[in-house]
């Protein structure tokens, strides 16, 4: 079939537009990397766009020598690992029974869970509750309330539903109980979905900042996102007057902020090429049944 001349022209424009989108998408990141390796004088003069000017790695050395940066970085790693493990265990424990047609009250439970997607307690009742439970200034304030994401749960439930019933029936014949079936049959068959869920939750916990901002006053507990937040918002103490006054927006040099940003996103960037396809599969699995 011959393509019309208009369509050929469109295709050229299309490629140009898409390349422009790629450029715009990558630009802010490249700009930050360039600023992180530039001298502050050049940044202030507005010389730094895509290429570092006045090459400088001193700031990297300074930030990496800051013990608070490493304490906060370590916290992020701990919160991510603990949070992801809790999330995976809880989600499996809920998704597996919900995937079974024989479960009494299944439809009610699904509604019970899904309703929380559309109506939640809101900021203040949650805040009051966490404080009442004595969880403020502990790791639990940020990992427990975020334990189950209903969206992820539904993806998992759909996956479990599609595991052939016969496999489990065979295991029952062999005398396995439900726990045995779950651990020896269902979970090994669900490795792709478990990997996807692990990544979803891990990135969520890695990037989370607001709960920590809300519940932590102790600097030693901050994740690195709060370290960065306090830096970009002018380094005032996190829970004071709240919004920053305009004067101190530029208190900390762009160079230092850029270095911290690069160091924060580096782990995500390193694993990104390998993991992004799992995310895409995960989203598509979720779309099979909403």
């Amino acid at each position, binding site marked *: 079939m011959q393509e019309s001349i208009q369509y050929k022209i469109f295709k050229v424009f299309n490629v140009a537009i898409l390349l422009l*989108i790629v450029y715009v998408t990558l630009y802010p990141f490249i700009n930050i990397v360039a600023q992180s390796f530039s001298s502050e004088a050049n*940044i202030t003069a507005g010389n730094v766009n895509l290429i570092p000017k006045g090459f400088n790695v001193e700031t990297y050395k300074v930030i990496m020598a800051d013990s608070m940066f490493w304490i906060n970085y370590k916290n992020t790693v701990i919160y991510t690992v603990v949070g992801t493990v809790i999330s995976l265990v809880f989600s499996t424990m809920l998704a597996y029974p919900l995937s079974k047609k024989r479960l009494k009250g299944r439809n009610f439970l699904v509604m019970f*869970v899904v309703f929380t997607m*559309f109506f939640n307690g809101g*900021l203040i009742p949650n805040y009051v509750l966490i404080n009442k439970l004595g969880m403020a200034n502990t790791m639990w304030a940020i990992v427990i309330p975020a334990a189950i994401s209903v969206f992820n749960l539904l993806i998992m439930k759909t996956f479990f539903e599609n595991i052939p019933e016969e496999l489990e029936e065979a295991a029952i014949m062999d005398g396995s109980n439900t726990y045995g079936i779950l651990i020896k049959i269902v979970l090994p068959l669900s490795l792709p979905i478990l990997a996807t869920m692990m990544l979803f939750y891990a*990135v969520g916990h890695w990037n989370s900042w607001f709960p920590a901002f809300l519940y932590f006053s102790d600097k030693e507990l901050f994740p690195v996102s709060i370290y*960065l937040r306090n830096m*970009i918002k002018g380094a005032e103490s996190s829970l004071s007057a709240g919004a920053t006054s305009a004067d101190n927006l530029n208190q900390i040099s762009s160079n230092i902020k850029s270095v911290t940003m690069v160091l924060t996103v580096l782990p995500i960037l390193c694993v*990104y090429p390998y993991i992004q396809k799992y995310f895409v599969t995960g989203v598509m699995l979720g779309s099979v049944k909403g």
Partner: protein
Amino acid sequence: MIAKLVKAYSVVKGEFNVQELAKNTTTQVTVTESKWIRAKKLIQKDWQLYSLLFLPIIYFVIFKYIPMFGNIIAFRRFIPGGSIFGEEWVGFYYFQMFLNDPTFFLVMKNTLILAVLLLVITFPAPIIFALLLNEVRKKGFKRFVQTTSYLPHFFSMVVVAGMVLELVALNGSINNLVEFFTGNRYSFIQLPEWFRTIFISSDLWQTTGWGAILYLAALTGISEELYEAAKIDGANRWKQTIHITIPGILPTIVVLLILNIGNFLNVGFEKVLLLYNPLTYETADVIATYVYRIGIQSASFSYGTAIGLFESIIGLILVFGANYLSRKITDSSLW
């Protein structure tokens, strides 16, 4: 959903009848009784399956449903350190308070404007992007563009805000460009008239690529035969897009639109909190940031909760309304 329910019901009923026949039970009373006994026996036999539910259900009750009922403090006096459900009824006192609060109407207006802009600009963007990508025949190029486009989705909001602040800073790249054309530099982040532009364009940057994934998945599901048939009828690529491609992804669009409308007032509170400052409150302050300042920074818990509850209820009405309308009009719906 309803079909599923009916099916589940008939399955249960089917088993039930078989059992009844085997037992040879006759009277109506024993039938209803044995239903409960049967359920109990079923749970006893299958206790391991039910035991798995224990912790997650406790989790949902404590961390989702208790805060939901905690909204009762919008109608009750609350003392910090006292009961999380408040001390005594005050009726609609706090609701009257915000109806007399000029700031409430300002943040309501700002929220609505941002929400409409998000719906009109940010919602269609992934659809257009997916349609453009769909016209690319070279697999490698397509994958490259797509993989790049959803990179910003993986950045923490703090990093996104940091990048935005650097880009629009006095010495940042955008000002470099602006100076080249106009000779002036502007402190965009301190100018209220620029906040919405900054907010929406950074949202486009962060969400368009990721949002396109579901549409691209839906696009691959459209049968090639439809296109072949259209070609034979002489339809060009534009006509094919209008008559085949867009109807093909319409159910996906509808479902995502409903989800979006449910979150209509939920305009990216974390980003506003990171990007706004007192100089831009006039356009940047939204309901959620106001609730945060009132409720947590000024410790007016009940007042903040009343405003938050008002927002949640509107959200709930919107999602049910959108779902109802979509079921009536297009046949695609969430439930």
